[in-house]
């Protein structure tokens, strides 16, 4: 059910071992309409990671999220409007009670070790959620191949990859 594109195979090929990682982060909604709790981050890992899919522990069509990676910083959501519109959670993450409780990213995302994803949530204006858990399904990339290109994968490596 996950997407394995050529880009992802190029990354996987730079590591000898790929280990399952499931990372759950509490969102911290307090049930207040339209609240924006402090941004939450994925847990830092000591290995490089590929994030493949996400799911949430609640069902709320009116809750939103804005995601960016930290180190390096890439915005996932278009944000060049004067008032950027955040993205409904259901467009990114599966819902626990639905047919697809984990929803795959169309392009798994690579994060270097000690890197993180930042998620800024906004609660529903009409039917706010209390609590809430966000879960990432990922692969830990261990035992990197070390050669003239470096160790494992890096963002710059694709320029020289054949």
């Amino acid at each position, binding site marked *: *059910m*996950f*997407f*394995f*594109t*050529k*880009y992802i195979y190029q990354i996987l090929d730079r590591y000898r071992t790929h280990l399952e990682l499931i990372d759950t982060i509490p969102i911290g909604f307090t049930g207040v309409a339209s609240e924006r709790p402090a941004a939450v981050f994925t847990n830092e890992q000591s290995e490089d990671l590929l994030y493949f899919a996400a799911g949430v522990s609640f*069902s709320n*069509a*009116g809750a939103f999220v804005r*995601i960016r*990676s930290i180190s390096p910083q*890439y915005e*996932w*959501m*278009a944000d*060049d*409007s004067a008032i950027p*519109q*955040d*993205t*409904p959670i*259901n*467009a*990114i993450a*599966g*819902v626990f009670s*639905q*047919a*697809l409780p984990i*929803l*795959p*990213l*169309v*392009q798994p*995302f690579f994060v270097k070790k000690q890197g993180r994803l930042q998620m800024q949530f906004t609660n529903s204006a*009409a039917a706010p959620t209390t609590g809430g858990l966000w879960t990432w399904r990922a692969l830990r990339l261990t035992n990197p191949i070390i050669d003239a290109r470096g160790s494992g994968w890096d*963002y*710059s*490596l*694709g*320029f020289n*990859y054949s």
Partner: protein
Amino acid sequence: MNSNETTRLHRIETGDWVGSAWRSSPKWTPYAQAIADHYPIQVPWYSTHTVTPNNVNSIPTVVVTRPNLYDVLIVGASAAVISVGDPTFSQIGLFGLQVTHKQTGIPWVAPNTIGFSPFAAFAGINLNPTPIIKLPEAFFLPARTQLKMEWVKLTDAATSAYTIIFTFVGVQLVNHASGFQAPEWITMPNGNTILVGSRLPWFGTIPFGTRNAAGRVFGAYSLNQGQQVVQFLPPSDCSVEIHDAYTNVETGSTFGDSPILLTMKITDMRAVSDWTPGLTPVTAVFGNETQVFPDLSFTKPHLLKVGHRTAITMQNNSTAVQALSGTVTLRGVRLCEY
């Protein structure tokens, strides 16, 4: 017809004809992959837009996306619907969408009787089994260009007020190499070199029925009980790979009888032996947003050659009620080189 299309008669270059569901294949289409191969950094991308379509009359509401910093491949779409007074979302199928790339002026929806497709033919609907659906082909949106979205009510009946939060889902393609320019030509798996932009999402929507004499206004479509009608898509100016099909007759139209009583037959007018030999319930051919495959795939994409057109014979077998505001949508890939 160019050499690419000749080859496609034998092999349709859509990978394993990637289906409508978000998880239906672990790969992208060969076209999308060939474009992405030019970029060493690929980042998920979501572009979300809020619109409250005009629910009083059928005057379009226009939303224009903002230019993006990077080139983007748009692979699918999702929509959240916030309704007023109608929590069942039963009227989702009554709001239509047309998407046009402003740089090229090419629309995604075929300009036929309606010229719009229900937005659930583009996007999965939030809490349904498939919250994101794929476009029939990924759309390459060059950096600093825009999409225009036109929203319109497809019926003249009263509808609730809706706010639709529409999200394009795709991948940002990043290449910081000095002097890099987006690819203009790519090589497909069969060795053919084609222009970027020569495979575009295509939607063809046909009303289920006709506009009656008393209601000759946009959106007044109906098929009375016991009646049959034939509707056509316009002759295509390019060949089209038709992949899958969506209908709103179960979720948007006003039809108070079993949907299996609505039957239809699809015909390629230049190859009349193709497709359904007899009338088939719409539920066996068309999907809707409440199902795992909102755009129900054909067994294999059908190549509608340039100049051909599609006819759909529709029949209402109900003895009691007419079908109002129903539409059927074919989805595919438009093959043109501009």
